């Protein structure tokens, strides 16, 4: 029997004129892992939230949702809590209390469990998931990955039969992501928990998922197994971005695999190692460095640790430079140092050959540099996008200069909306418009590809490319290696307060053994120098077979 089934779901938000979901039907058997794919705005989150009636959005719903064969509305709050648990994208909007221990106990406290039971169950779970080290910490001290792990544990403490996750890894770095998914895998394989997961970057989910549901414009297509999904997606340019690099690489050979290991073996067996390394066709001309940092030291407090520790950096004009590194290593601090938000206590930073300190007043931020924070919403403090852009124009003494830029970025229809009502991709485009209004020559972007779907990522990447072709220098900090490999001109690993092994992107990724893209890992021994999935695909299609 199905543990969960939907039939002909139609849903329309209050005040909206369009249906968000149109005739969605699918069913889930016990202990299955279901992957829900779809672009931002395709109704993924709406669908997941509708499945749990306590958090269902306000609107009109028709069709039926059955859980364990009973209609959803028949379930009492107690039964519902014990049947379905839910984890969402942002760990900061899920943790209720200030300590991990009380957060884990929250669910059981709501059920009115007694003290001994709460302590016993929480302890048991903390031991099972291996989070004893954070158990007595304050939530504020945790990293993003630990926070998300904590909210996952807090959600499953009541041992639910179904676990729903809405883009749980969108805010996490690769290490946090794989830790989270390894826990999910254990939940599924050791406890038989049914998992329904929506994700933009489903690389790690593909390994263990059983079923794929694709949402597009409110309509659902179900694929009973992942192979059939991969076959269908290979034909569809919109779904193509969801296929992981390892799968994509050997598709041309008529095989479907889901791990780097298998793909690597197949390629090594099929192809003879090539002597000539894959190289950029037109190497960029070496221009003069426009951003120079020498011996930069920075710490937050006198007694603290140096976050930037003898940092040296050169970025040339028209280059896209990506500083990669895990979360919490100080990439953001480095960007803030380079664009003058923080002042180093030692060392010199010069921009366009001029010491950053000798820019008087706000001249540094007018026609010179612009900074995009990790959360682009931070740039919008007015009530509508238009007001914010008008304010920037006014500060720049430019009259109505924003309309053409808006058109160029395709955000004209968003101008009169409240910034908080925009999706991650939309706000990013608006933020970019706002930054470009100051006519900067150098852009600093902090995690620009975070929480974007593959298409939005692609649009962003193209946008950056065209900006750099116009001669603008772009410096970005990211943990998204695939993104850096695809769009950056040069990369550097930020570790221990400095940029280590800074090189051109291709050199960087083919030199690195661990910290590199999946495509590079697969192709290393056969096609040296290949670093993105597209290149690998091309190489495979044109390679000499053994």
């Amino acid at each position, binding site marked *: 029997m199905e543990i969960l089934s939907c039939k002909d779901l139609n849903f329309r938000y209050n005040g909206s004129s369009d249906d968000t979901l149109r005739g969605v039907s699918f069913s889930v058997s016990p202990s299955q892992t279901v992957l829900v794919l779809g672009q931002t705005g395709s109704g993924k989150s709406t669908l997941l939230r509708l499945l749990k009636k306590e958090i269902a959005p306000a609107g009109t719903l028709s069709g039926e949702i059955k859980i364990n064969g009973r209609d959803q509305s028949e379930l009492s709050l107690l039964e519902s809590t014990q049947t379905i648990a839910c984890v969402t994208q942002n760990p900061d909007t899920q943790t209720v209390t200030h*300590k991990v221990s009380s957060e884990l106990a929250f669910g059981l406290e709501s059920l009115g469990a007694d003290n001994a039971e709460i302590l016993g169950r929480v302890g048991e779970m903390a031991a099972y998931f291996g989070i004893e080290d954070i158990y007595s910490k304050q939530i504020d001290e945790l990293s993003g990955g630990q926070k998300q792990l904590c909210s996952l544990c807090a959600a499953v403490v009541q041992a639910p039969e179904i676990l729903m996750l809405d883009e749980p890894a969108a805010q996490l770095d690769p290490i946090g992501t794989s830790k989270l998914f390894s826990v999910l895998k254990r939940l599924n394989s050791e406890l038989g928990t049914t998992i329904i997961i929506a994700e933009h970057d489903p690389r790690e989910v593909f390994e263990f998922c059983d079923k794929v549901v694709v949402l597009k414009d409110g309509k659902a297509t179900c694929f009973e197994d992942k192979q059939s999904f991969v076959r269908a997606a290979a034909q569809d340019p919109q779904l193509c971005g969801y296929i992981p690099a390892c799968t994509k690489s050997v598709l041309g050979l008529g095989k479907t695999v889901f791990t780097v290991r298998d793909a690597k073996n197949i390629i090594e067996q099929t192809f003879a190692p090539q002597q000539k390394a894959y190289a950029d066709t037109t190497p960029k001309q070496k221009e003069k460095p426009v951003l120079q940092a020498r011996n930069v030291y920075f710490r937050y407090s006198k007694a603290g640790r140096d976050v930037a520790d003898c940092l040296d950096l050169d970025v040339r004009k028209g280059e896209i430079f990506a500083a990669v590194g895990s979360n919490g290593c100080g990439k953001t601090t480095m960007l803030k140092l380079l664009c003058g938000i923080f002042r180093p206590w030692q060392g010199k930073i010069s921009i366009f050959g001029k010491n950053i300190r000798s820019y008087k007043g706000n001249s540094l931020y007018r026609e010179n540099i612009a900074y995009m924070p990790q959360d682009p919403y931070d740039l919008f*403090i007015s009530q509508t996008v238009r007001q914010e852009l008008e304010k920037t124009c006014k500060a720049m003494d430019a009259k109505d200069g924003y309309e053409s830029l808006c058109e160029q970025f395709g955000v004209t229809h968003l101008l009169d909306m409240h910034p908080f009502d925009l999706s991650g991709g939309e706000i990013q485009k608006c933020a970019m418009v706002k930054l470009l209004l100051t006519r900067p020559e150098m852009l600093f972007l902090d995690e620009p590809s975070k929480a974007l779907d593959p298409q939005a990522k692609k649009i962003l990447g193209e946008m950056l490319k065209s900006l750099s072709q116009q001669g603008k220098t772009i410096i970005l900090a990211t943990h998204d290696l695939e993104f850096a490999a695809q769009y950056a001109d040069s990369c550097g690993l930020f570790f221990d307060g400095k940029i280590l092994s800074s090189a051109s992107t291709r050199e960087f990724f083919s030199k690195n053994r661990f910290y590199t893209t999946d495509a590079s890992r697969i192709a290393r021994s056969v096609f040296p120098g290949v670093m993105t999935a597209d290149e690998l695909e091309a190489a495979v299609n044109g390679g000499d077979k053994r």
Partner: protein
Amino acid sequence: MCYFRTFDPIVPMTYFLCVMSICVFTANPYLQACALLGGVVLLLCIKKAKALKLLALSLAVIAVMGATNPLFVHRGLTDLFYIGKDPYTLEALLYGLSLGCSIASLLIWFSVFNAIVTQDDILAVFGKRLPKTALVISMILGFIPKLRRKYTELLHAQYASGASRRKSLHRSAVLFIACLAYEAERVMDISMSMKARGYGLKDRTHAQRRRFRKSDAAAIAFSLALCIVCFVFIGKGRLDYWYYPRLSPNGFDPFGVGSYLLLCISPLFFIVKEKTLWRYCPAKT
């Protein structure tokens, strides 16, 4: 310090309530001396040299209260000198000193209280009877660092768009409002997460990491018993003391004062015990 941790948090709180309910309201100089003595010794034991500042402040408070009280109150028979027409009396001076001692002992005891009773203790005590209140306090404590971080991020974004670094009321207010606008929506998602985890189902409970033991009960009984003994003596009038019109000759009852002194210095027993324990600790070798 560790020793207090072995008790249920209700124990130190009851203890402080017992001590303070007497030392603050009594006018009896013997009881006040006991409270001051106990408080100062405890403070020095816990905070060492850091306590000196507070002790100096307390002395200043006592002096100021003593000196100023006769300016407002002109009762008492022993006139020291006259200011204008009004007498400056010895009794009023001493009464002022006694008031000063009340305030000083309050300051000192609250300082000891803050050193021993932590946020989590207060939450645990609230949580037992008022789980919802404890939940809200815990939420506030969780929100404050989140809000602070958001505010800093907004401020940095402002710097990077060329805003001046001078603090101004207007700009801070704009950012403060932006911070609220942003967090208000995030917070609504938190309420969603609460509902998803069964909030509002039944009467909430509150998980206590520690169980109430016999030793806790004994410690509470000890504090309460000594406190009640004092109250009985106070009620019987054996500890009555008055300053006006002339200083009272009595007010010293060995049992009453003795039991209060015992109450005030009883934590010392644990501090000494702990020190010896660690000195001859088998775990050390």
